[in-house]
């Protein structure tokens, strides 16, 4: 019986650990777009292969994407984006790691729309920056979706725009994120 007691205990512990793991949600096809409005041309690009993990218990969120997966309207823009601006060969990924500051205000088990205040570190072009932004968390039939829109200043990430092209590329670009999560089964 002693043995049984030990196994029961192990069972309980492992079960508990297993349950906590259920609080992780993942997306492999999140969408990120950026929009640059400049006097000569508007540039828009979108990435449909954004990876993200959300831990609803700890309130942690991580986002990662390959810069090369951004698709542009013009093939040449895409080449210049990768070659001259974000230097994708040297810095292949952009990432974000942050926490939801008002985790208590969000009930992940109840349908509804919640505003999440997110604070974290964004890394683009090998440079990190602390940002605070908001996102809309939508819970519908146990599905979690996060939408966010924020502005990034190109200069903050040491991405240089030549003077000659200052009318083609905006100094501040608008970033939109759409992440629809599924339960993460490791």
């Amino acid at each position, binding site marked *: 019986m002693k043995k*049984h007691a030990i*196994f029961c205990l*192990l*069972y309980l*512990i*492992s*079960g*508990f*650990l*297993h349950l*906590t*793991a259920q609080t*992780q949600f*993942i997306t*492999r096809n999140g969408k990120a777009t950026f929009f640059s409005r400049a006097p000569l041309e508007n540039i828009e690009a*979108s990435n*449909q*292969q954004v*990876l*993200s*993990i959300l*831990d609803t218990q700890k309130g*942690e*969120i*991580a*986002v*990662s994407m*390959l810069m*090369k997966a951004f*698709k*542009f*309207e*013009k*093939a*040449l823009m*895409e*080449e*210049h984006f*990768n*070659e*001259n601006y974000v*230097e994708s*060969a*040297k810095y*292949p*990924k952009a*990432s974000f*790691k942050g926490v939801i500051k008002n985790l208590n205000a969000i009930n992940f088990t109840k349908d509804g729309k919640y505003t999440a205040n997110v604070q974290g570190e964004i890394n683009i072009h090998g440079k990190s920056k602390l940002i605070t932004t908001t996102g809309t968390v939508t819970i519908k039939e146990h599905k979690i979706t996060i939408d966010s829109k924020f502005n990034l200043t190109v200069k903050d990430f040491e991405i240089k725009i*030549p003077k*000659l*092209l200052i009318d*083609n590329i905006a100094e501040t670009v608008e970033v939109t994120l759409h992440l629809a999560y599924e339960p*993460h089964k*490791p």
Partner: protein
Amino acid sequence: MTSINSKFILLTLLIFFLGSISLKAQDDLLKELDKEQDTQKDFVSATFKGTRLINGHSVETKKKKELDFLISHRFGTLNSGFDDLFGLDASNIRLALEYGVTDFINLGVGRSSFEKNYDGFLKVRVLRQSQGAKSMPISLTAFASVVIKTLKSTDPEADESFSDRMFYSYQLLLARKFNERLSLQLMPTLIHRNQVPAQTLDNDIFALGVGGRFKFTKRMSLNLEYYYQFNDIIQGVNQNVLAIGIDIETGGHVFQLQFTNAQAMIEKGFIAETTGDFFEGDIHFGFNISRTFQLGKSSKKTKAINNE
């Protein structure tokens, strides 16, 4: 009793095992994402800035629905002296249009003032250098062109038929981008001319080109290109062609400035008919300017929309 007991132990172990896996996964969310990403294949892009290395083609092709307008000039030789302002008075030009039928198939047409040549070519990307799963060490592009020479012969007796004026060039372009700065290319070449200027000359010319670029800033690179010819050189008729140039890229334009001993800007000309000797000062200054127009949405974008 024992069988129930062992099943219970097995189940417990299994659940505990699963539990410990989940525990591991919680370490660092970003690291967890890295694991998801590493399996993706990554194609190498921009081995060269333009579709030309200097005189000859590079492995690069225009993307789908891109139209490239290419203006090339070669001036007279530098050793022609001050009277000709080091060759600036004598100039020949080639105007060309190149179009991306797909990302991998390009068609082009051109007209050179030199010998009043009309040329058409087909360029097909066969292999793309890539990293990651099933990586490929090199890029390979196949090139074929037809040239029709329309300059009338100076000999009034000569009776050249249409086919006598035709030339064919075939190239395999093999390139590797070693790093962000250095790319090298090999170009085995076959040129066939239906008619040769003298009977002792071969109709088929074999040549091997080597070249490369070294990027010294993000938008500028130093290029070198050399074609070694296996036929006519032996007979002392022609010279091997050497070219040294600089690429400057500004948005939709690529400017290429070069010094070369070739006067022609098409393969059959600069590989098989160059007579100037680079080291004797028979050097032509020249430039290529390319302007790319996007005639519709690029293929990738359309695909992305369809996926939605």
